[in-house]
């Protein structure tokens, strides 16, 4: 008898099915991977387990007994613990209080908070993760982002005798962790497995999943397509199951050599903490920007986009002097931008897709620059949506209703709406699933073939090597060197980022 089994789980939002027929069984003492592209239905399934979303139909059994999960409180009582992707901390209060967030504080005499017990119990939870360098009494604000993530994680390991934890649901827990920290987490998860507990593990990092998990359930389009032992499956098979077709190359092949002619010429540019920087970019070329985070990548892109004042230096775009004072100037000059934070910087989630796509070109997509022509606008947006292979119910669908990958395609459609000469990409595939990633790479390739120059900032080294013609390595606020991407090894590039040039 399985610890947890779900059958016939279905859920529709406003008539649009998010889950159609989902079945999932989790045994006691296993780490079970839940795989699938963004939009496959993983989040909805997790929300159902957490009691946050009520399913339309579901047969849920725990230890063979039919059960319902009516509220987050019930989920907690059943022994479910959740580590969410967007799990917030309160910086102003102590580590221990953050760990106890949403739980009942231990009390003395029934009314007073027993701070000693609170701190001790929180300390135990930290220790379970092997964390000894964080004091539970410390204020959250004083911790590094990585340590904050560890504190969030440890809240799931708080011992609660009246509702012992039986299932840990982890959604991208390692997204903000270093390798060492991740390893520490994995050790704890393995210990949980050895103690007979269960883990449902969600991650886009396939290597991690394959190394850690015992079995995997793959979801696609709101349904579970297969469940199997990790030992019996290959990396490629897993990808094929997720995207529903055979996995090909991760990156579309580059076309012929970049077209000639200089698109962008940057001379001695300085802005913010960006120190004097020079480089040039040909039409149709993709220049990658690599470097440790905070080396000046963001400043370079923001300066070229008019969001950060240029302190000195000259920039020439297509032979004409270019000095933007605002993003509006940049768009006018033919420079487009895909920002790093899709939801907070890229999209108006509560507005229709077409309004998102045409926003930067509203002047041209209107009558005399002033009066809206919604039909023509929607036609224009529909064409662009097709160009970026957007999957939606139509141009009037709200951007917020799309999956992460499709949201990013909307951002791309907006960026391409004015046929830009220069496209600035800041982490364009972050949080985007495998299928949509490939689509986005294809879009970028298509555009370069039409002569567009691209600057690609990414912390994903294989992506830089796979997509770029040349890679500029930034260190300490300036470009340290520019190397051809072809034949560059990942280790080599990483070493260059650290400033240790391999022989």
């Amino acid at each position, binding site marked *: 008898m399985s610890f947890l089994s779900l059958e016939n789980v279905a859920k529709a939002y406003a008539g649009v099915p998010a889950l159609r027929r989902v079945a999932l069984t989790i045994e006691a003492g296993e780490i079970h991977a839940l795989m699938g592209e963004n939009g496959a239905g993983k989040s909805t399934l997790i929300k159902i387990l957490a009691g946050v979303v009520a399913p339309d139909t579901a047969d849920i059994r725990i230890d063979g007994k039919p059960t319902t999960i009516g509220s987050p409180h019930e989920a907690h009582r059943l022994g479910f613990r959740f580590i969410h992707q967007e799990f917030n901390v309160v910086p102003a209060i102590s580590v221990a209080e953050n760990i106890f967030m949403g739980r009942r504080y231990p009390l003395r005499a029934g009314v007073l908070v027993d701070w000693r017990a609170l701190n001790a119990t929180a300390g135990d939870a930290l220790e379970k993760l092997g964390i000894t360098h964080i004091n539970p009494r410390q204020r959250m604000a004083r911790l590094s982002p990585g340590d904050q993530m560890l504190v969030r994680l440890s809240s799931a390991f708080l011992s609660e005798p009246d509702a012992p934890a039986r299932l840990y649901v982890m959604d991208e827990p390692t997204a903000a962790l270093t390798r060492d920290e991740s390893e520490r987490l994995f050790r704890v998860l393995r210990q949980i497995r050895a103690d007979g507990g269960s883990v449902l593990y969600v991650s886009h990092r396939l290597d991690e999943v394959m190394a850690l998990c015992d079995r995997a359930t793959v979801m696609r389009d709101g349904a579970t397509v297969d469940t199997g032992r990790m030992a019996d499956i290959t990396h490629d098979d897993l990808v094929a199951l997720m995207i529903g077709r055979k996995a090909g190359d991760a990156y579309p092949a580059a076309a012929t050599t970049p077209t000639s002619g200089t698109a962008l010429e940057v001379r001695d540019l300085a802005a913010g903490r960006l120190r004097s920087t020079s480089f040039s970019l040909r039409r149709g070329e993709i220049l990658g920007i690599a470097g440790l985070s905070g080396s000046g990548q963001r400043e370079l892109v923001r300066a070229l986009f008019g969001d950060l004042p240029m302190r000195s230096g000259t920039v020439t775009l297509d032979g004409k002097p270019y000095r933007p004072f605002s993003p509006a100037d940049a768009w006018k000059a033919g420079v487009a931008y895909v920002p790093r934070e899709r939801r907070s*910087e890229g*999209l108006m989630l509560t507005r229709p897709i077409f309004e998102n796509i045409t926003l930067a070109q509203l002047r041209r997509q*209107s009558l005399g620059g002033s*009066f*809206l022509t919604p039909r023509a606008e929607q036609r224009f947006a529909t064409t662009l949506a097709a160009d970026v292979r957007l999957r939606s119910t139509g141009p009037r669908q709200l951007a917020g209703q799309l999956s992460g990958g499709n949201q990013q395609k909307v951002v791309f459609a*907006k960026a391409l709406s004015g046929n830009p000469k220069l496209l600035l990409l800041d982490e364009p595939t972050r949080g985007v699933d495998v299928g949509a990633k490939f689509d986005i790479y294809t879009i970028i390739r298509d555009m370069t073939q039409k002569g567009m120059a691209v600057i690609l900032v990414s912390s994903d080294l294989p992506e830089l090597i796979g997509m770029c013609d040349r890679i500029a390595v930034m260190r300490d606020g300036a470009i340290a060197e520019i190397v051809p991407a072809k034949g560059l090894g990942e280790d080599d590039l990483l070493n260059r980022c650290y400033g240790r040039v391999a022989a």
Partner: protein
Amino acid sequence: MTIATLLRRYGTLIGFALILGFFWFNLPDTFMTARNWLNITQQLSMLMVVAAGMTIVMVMGDFDLSVGSAASLSGIVAGVLFAAGYPIWMTVGVALLGGLVGGAINGVLVSFIGILPFVATLAMLTILSGAAFVLSGGKTISGASIPADFSNFARGGIPLGDIGGVAVMLPNLTIVALVVVFAVWVLLEQTTFGRRLYAIGGNIEAAYLSGVAVRRLKLIAFALTGLSAAAAGLMYASRVASANPTQGSGLMLNAIAAVFLGMTMSEQGVPRILATVIGVLILGVLDNGLTQLSVDSYIRQVLVGAIILLAVAASSFSKRLRR
């Protein structure tokens, strides 16, 4: 379409219909008459104009607390200029310009200096109100200093003929309100300006990065709200044939309430001008109907507050049902 969706979208409208039905049933002879409705539209014209202006800034997710005192001040400016013998066209022009400038100052404070709208417009509320007291010396400007042509405007209208032996006219104030509503509708729903304001309201950072001139648009939007407040102040002064430094103060909260009522009619909780019109009508019909039913004026206030709460609660409750 589920009941929840239906209610989310039409709950407030259904509530409005129920209120109308209730008054119609209880006041069979006087409520649903052309005369009464022309009355209502005239009574609501000032609130309508302020609420229309308020909708413009609320589309961006901001609001303006200074509209009431801006209305008072524009009435006082007009009164002072009238008393000094300036002609009507010049006086009206100066008062409207003053509203535009006051609103633009709000815009500068909010968008260029970066003060929260709550704080900036609260401070402007106090400043404008103080200015109205200073200019008027705290007194009501009335009587002979207000030209008859000015006060007659609020009493005039376009004759619509006789209904039941009584001459009926479309009041000038109603016409002004309709023109303002139409102008704001065109601005918000039919122009790139309006689309950009909605973009700012949707995500200000994304709008800025998409080339929307956020600061300039905010300034213009606040200036337009100030202009509408000044227009309402003049309408008020014309209706009461006088100017008092506090007479617009009731407009601000009612205008915000009307926009909120309207927002309950939108799935995304976005202000729309036509929904604001419904919000204003709900407030006005309650006043009109309950007065005719001789309901105590204090109970009326309690009911109005309760209805706003009910509408907002119903709309957020039905949103939760969707989870």
